[in-house]
C-alpha cells in the first residue's frame, strides 16, 4: 500500500483503470463482431502516427487520434467498397501504418528511445495531462456505449435484423471503429503499441467463458480489464517487471483461470 503515496503510481492506476475499463467493454463488442484484430491493425497505424508526430515535433497523442480514427474508417470502407474481408482490410491498413512509420523514423534519423517507449508502453511515466485526456476520452466513449447500448447489441448480434429494425447500421459500425481508434491510442500509453490488442481481446474472451447474458459479459469483461491493470501495475512494481507486459500477463492469467474453471465445471456437471 505504501506504493499508493507516490504520485506517478496514482496517475498510472487512475489512467490505467479507466483505459482498462474502456478496452474491455469495447473489446467485447469487437470480439463478438469478429473484429478482434482491428486493435492490432490500428496499433500499427498508431506507430506510424507517432512517427509523424515525432518528425514534425507535435505531441504524438494529438496526431495519433485523428490519424487512427481516419484509418479505422478506411478499414470499414475497404470492407464495404472493395468487397474484401475485414481481416484483409485490417492487414492492408496496418501494413501501411508500419511501413509509413518505419520510413518516417528512418528519415528522421532512425529509431530512438521515445519511439520504443510508445512501442512497449510506459504507464508509470504517464503525465497529468495524459491522465486527464484518458479520463475524459474514456468517459466520453463509455457514455456513447451506454447511450447506444441497444443499437450496438442489435448490430453485433444480427446486423441484417438490426437494419430491418430501422437501425442505421452503417453509423453504428462507423461509431464502433471510431471508438476502437480512440481506445487504441489511449491504450498505447498503458501497454504499448505491441500489446494493445491484448487489452481489447483478453478481457472479452475471459468474459465469454463465464457470462450468462450480454449484460453479464460486459460486467465480467470490465472487472477483468480493471483488475488486470491494477494488479499488473502492482506486480510490475514488486517484481520489477515492465508494467505493460505485467498487465497483459495478468489478463492472460484471468483468461486461463476462467477457461480452466469452465472446463472443470463442464466435466463435473
Amino acid at each position: 500500500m505504501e506504493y499508493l503515496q507516490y504520485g506517478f503510481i496514482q496517475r498510472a492506476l487512475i489512467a490505467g483503470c479507466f483505459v482498462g475499463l474502456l478496452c474491455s467493454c469495447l473489446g467485447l463488442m469487437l470480439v463478438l463482431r469478429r473484429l478482434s484484430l482491428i486493435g492490432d491493425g490500428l496499433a500499427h497505424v498508431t506507430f506510424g502516427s507517432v512517427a509523424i508526430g515525432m518528425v514534425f515535433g507535435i505531441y504524438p497523442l494529438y496526431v495519433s487520434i485523428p490519424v487512427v480514427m481516419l484509418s479505422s474508417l478506411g478499414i470499414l470502407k475497404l470492407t464495404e467498397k472493395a468487397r474484401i474481408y475485414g481481416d484483409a482490410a485490417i492487414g492492408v491498413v496496418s501494413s501501411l501504418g508500419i511501413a509509413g512509420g518505419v520510413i518516417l523514423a528512418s528519415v528522421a534519423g532512425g529509431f530512438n528511445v521515445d519511439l520504443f517507449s510508445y512501442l512497449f508502453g510506459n504507464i508509470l511515466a504517464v503525465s497529468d495531462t495524459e491522465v486527464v485526456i484518458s479520463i475524459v476520452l474514456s468517459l466520453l466513449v463509455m457514455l456513447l456505449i451506454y447511450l447506444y447500448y441497444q443499437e450496438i447489441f442489435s448490430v453485433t448480434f444480427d446486423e441484417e435484423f438490426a437494419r430491418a429494425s430501422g437501425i442505421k447500421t452503417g453509423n453504428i459500425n462507423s461509431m464502433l471503429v471510431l471508438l476502437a481508434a480512440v481506445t487504441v491510442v489511449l491504450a498505447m500509453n498503458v501497454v504499448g503499441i505491441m500489446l494493445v490488442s491484448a487489452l481489447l481481446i483478453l478481457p472479452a474472451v475471459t468474459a465469454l467463458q463465464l457470462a450468462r447474458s450480454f449484460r453479464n459479459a460486459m460486467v465480467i469483461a470490465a472487472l477483468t480489464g480493471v483488475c488486470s491493470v491494477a494488479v499488473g501495475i502492482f506486480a510490475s512494481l514488486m517484481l520489477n517487471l515492465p508494467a505493460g507486459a505485467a498487465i497483459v500477463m495478468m489478463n492472460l492469467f484471468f483468461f486461463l483461470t476462467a477457461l480452466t474453471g469452465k472446463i472443470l465445471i463442464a466435466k463435473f456437471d
Partner: protein
Amino acid sequence: MSTAVIAVENLCFQYQAVEVLTDISIEINAGDYVGLVGPNGSGKTTLVRAILGVVRSATGKVALFGRALEQFQDWHKVGYLPQKLGGFNPNFPATVREVVSLGLIARKSFPRRPDRNDQRAVDRALERLDIANIGQKLIGELSGGQQQRVLIARAIVSDPELIILDEPTAALDPETREHFFSILQDLNRDSRVTMILVTHDIGTIGRYANKLLYIDRKIIFYGGFDEFCRSENMTAMFGGGAQHIICHRHTL
C-alpha cells in the same frame, strides 16, 4: 381506398452486374397472406431484403404502409425473420430474453431502454412460442429448432402489422412447424396481420396463404390460389403434380 402495406414498383436489382430481380411490381394489402416461392437463386430473399431496405435497390420504388422506404420510420410495424439461422454468432453471450427483446427496439425512442411493458411483451412472445421455460438460457446453448423459435418470437414480439419470414420452418420438427403455422394463421385471421412467407414447402403454403407470388428473377405469377390452380401456364411451370399439391392443400 386503403393503402397497400407493401407497394413495389419496377424494382430491379443487380449484384456484380448480374440481374437478380427484373422489373418487379407488386402490391400487398392489409390482411394478405402471401406465399413467396421460386426455385433456388430466383431472388426471393433478395426481394424481401430490398423491400426492407437491407439491400439498396438499384432502381425502382418501394413503399411500406404508404411511405417511401427512404422515409419510412415505423419499423415497429414490421416483424422480420432473416433466412440464415447461422446469421448470428452462436457463441454470443445473449439470453433468449435479451434476443427476443431486440424485436422491440424499433418502437423505442432513444436511448431505447426496455421497460416493464417490454418485459411483459417478451413474456407473451415466449409463451406464444412455448419457450418461456428457456428465457434465461444462452441462445448458443439451444438446438437449431429452439433457436428458430426464439427468432420467430423476436419477429412477433412487437405485435407487428406486417411479418416477413424467410424460410422460417427449415429447422423445425413437424409438430413445432404445425404449431408455428397455426400461430401465424391466428395472427393473420384474428389481427389481420399481413404475412409474407418465403418457403420451398409448396404444400404447406397452399394450405395457409391466400396469395401466391412465384418469382424467378421476375414475376412469373402473382395472384390468388383459384387463379393459380386454373392456370395452364402454371401447370407448365410447376408440373401438374406440384400444382396439384398446392391446390389440393389450399382447398382442404
